[in-house]
Structures are given as C-alpha cells and as structure tokens.
C-alpha cells in the first residue's frame, strides 16, 4: 500500500511515466498460487539500454493490428447488401 501511495504521489507531481520502471513488477513463476493478483506485463517499462534495443510491441497488440487490417480488407471487399 505504501508503494502505491508513493506512485500516486509521483503521478500527482506529474512524473508517473518517469517512475514507470519501478511499477507493477510481474511475479516470478515460483510465485504461482499466491493470492496476489498478477499484474499486467508492460513491455513499455523496460529500459532501452546502451547497446540494447527497444522493447518489442507485445504480440497481442501485433495480432490485434493484423486482425484490424484483415477486417478492414474484408469490409472493403464485401459488396453492399442492396
């Protein structure tokens, strides 16, 4: 709870993003079965290090993007009902 208050205060100060790398650390597999709610993995909080690379977009988002593109293509190809 104390951690959440600190993060909330950082957000009030306008530095929520700057503090993003210490937020909502996902559990290790060994923690499975605890009562703690598993928080969402956020690739965006990964630091891009000196000789490193940007975090890849989550595959879920890539699948959604592909799905949106496919749906738009199908919609364009479908003739009007009339």
């Amino acid at each position, binding site marked *: 709870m104390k951690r959440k208050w600190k993060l909330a205060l*950082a957000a009030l100060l306008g530095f929520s993003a700057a503090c993003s790398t210490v937020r909502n650390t996902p559990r290790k597999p060994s923690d499975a079965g605890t009562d703690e709610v598993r928080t969402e993995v956020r690739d965006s909080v990964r*630091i*891009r290090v000196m000789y490193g690379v940007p975090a890849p*977009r989550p595959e879920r988002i890539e699948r959604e993007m592909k799905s949106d593109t496919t749906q738009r293509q199908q919609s364009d190809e479908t003739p009007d009902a009339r």
Partner: protein
Amino acid sequence: MNGRRLGLRKRMALNIFSDLYRSTVAEHRLDTLFWECTLRCNLACRHCGSDCRVDPGVADMPLADFLKVLDEEVTPHVDPAEVLVIFSGGEVLVRDDLEEAGAEVTRRGYPWGMVTNGLALTAERLRSLRRAGLRTISLSLDGFEAEHNYIRRNPRSYDRALDALRAIVREPGLTYDVVTCVTGALVPQLEAFRDMLLAEGVRSWRLFSIFPVGRAKDDPTLRMTDAQFREMLDFIRRTRREGRIDVSYACEGFLGGYEAEVRDHFYQCAAGVSIASIRVDGAISGCTSVRADFHQGNIYTDSFWEVWENRFEPFRNREWARRGVCADCRMFRYCLGGGMHLHGDDGELLYCHYHRL
C-alpha cells in the same frame, strides 16, 4: 550551471523514485539478457568500446553453450516471454548461424533483438531474420555521410546503413530505432539529421555521447565539449516537445534538470539489476557496455542463475562508487555513481554527466 538545477517538484519525484528503486534492486528480476555472441566485426569503428575487429583473437561462443544456459539455468526461473534476449557483438551479422540462433531462442519462447551497423543487412537478410523470429532491432547511424563514414572508417558504411534503414522501416511489425553516437561535428547538424530521419520514416531515435573506453579512449575528435553536450540535450528536449519523433538520450548518466525531459524515465543503471550479459568467453556480467572487469562468474565454471541471484553485489550496492568526485556529491543518492560502464577496473569514474551540465 542552469542544467543542474532541480526544481522542487522534480526533486520530490526523484526522492520517491529513489525509494521505490531500492525495491526494484532488491528484487532484481531479470528482464533482459545480452548474449555477446561474437567480437568479430566487419568494421573497425573509431569509437568502439569493445575494440572489435575482423579478427579479435577470441572465438565466437558456440550457440549450443548459450542455449544450454537458457535451458538449464534461465528458463526454469523466468517466464521466457518476459525476458528479452539481445544478440550483441561485434557485429552479429557476421555469424552465419544467426538465423539458427534466433529460431532456437524463439522456439523457447523468448523475444529477441539485435543491434547492427547495417553494413551487411540486406533486405533479404532482414527477411531471413524475421522468419527466425527477430522482433526488434537498433541500427547505428552516426550522422550524415561524412560524419558516419569518419567514425565507421569505411566509405560504403553510410550508404549501406541507409539501405538497411529503408528495409527496416518498411518491414511490417518490426520494432526498431536508430542509434546515433553524437560527436562535436554532428551537433550543429542535429536538426537537419532529425529531418532526414523523419523523411525516411523513422519515428524512434536514441542519441549517445561517446564514452572514453576502448578505441575511443584517446581520440579527441569523438568528444563533445560541455557546451555541445548541453546543446545536444536542449535539442532532445525541444524535439520531444515537438512530438514528431520519439527521441531520447541514452540510458547513461544522471542529467540533473534534464531528468525526465530527455528520456522517458528517471536515470537508473539497470546493469545487474534487471539486465545480465553472457560475454563471448562465458563471463557473466551486467550489460555489454560494461567493459571493465566486473565479471561475476563464468558459465563454464558457475551456475548462471546462482550467480544472478547471489552475486552482482557491486551492481546492486553502489556504495563502493562513493569516492573521488562522487564522495561528497549531493546527487549521489540519485545517480549512485553513474552507469557501471563509466567506471574503470579500479572503480574510478571515467566521467560524470552531471558535472558537464
């Protein structure tokens, strides 16, 4: 002196961050694993901190050895989807088995990426790497032709890197950015260079200053003056506000009043906290920019996971860095002595970003 000034709001936020970061360090959850798969390179860049060359005298690590560590030491303790594997060099494209390596890492559930100078990255090779699961890539482009070729010491390097960039930008679904080592010669051209990148479709860009290690150590032509360094940071701040391109300064160095204005996050050195590397000779360390001997073990004699969990003390407790210029510095609580890669073998700080402001 103005660049050093922390306003009250930012100072309060930094205090909160420093407090929270202690728990991040205590947890040391691995989220990035570098594999230094080669020290061979198809260039001999002036600024190379790794002193890479065509024949470095050090053999590539066999892929099987790295995969063994993944299978036996890392996978049992992590969710592979949450650990980004980065192939590092040298120039990783010199490895003929790079696609095999990528496919094996992908098969095990790890996302992977690589950094390249682009000299050997044809459109065909890029497609081949994508089929092997490449998810993210950084391309080095150190200015316009004269500046880039001067640093890279190859008259074809700029054209090849530009061709590689165009292939990368056009590749659907590939995360990428351009990384630029900024020298004094490039500072007056940053606006024009930014516009060129925008015209090429680039939307993500990182700028580095060159730190004095390896071949860069004694080359004054690679350095910026303090005034140029501030000018570069002002440029980044201004460009971020424009919103046309996601530009940031590299992860290194506490930047005082520029904190949270030239990067997405407050300064932190994640080496040994969430980042580990397996070096070409098997040494286990933080990120591959750390060239000094802060090795914590070796995969050929130690358990990687045991080392990750129980060693890395110099990376996770930086009190040893409270010496020299850091001894009485009020910013130490925020910078913890700066990036690990900015310390020599004896622990001496090679240079301080904050004092350049």
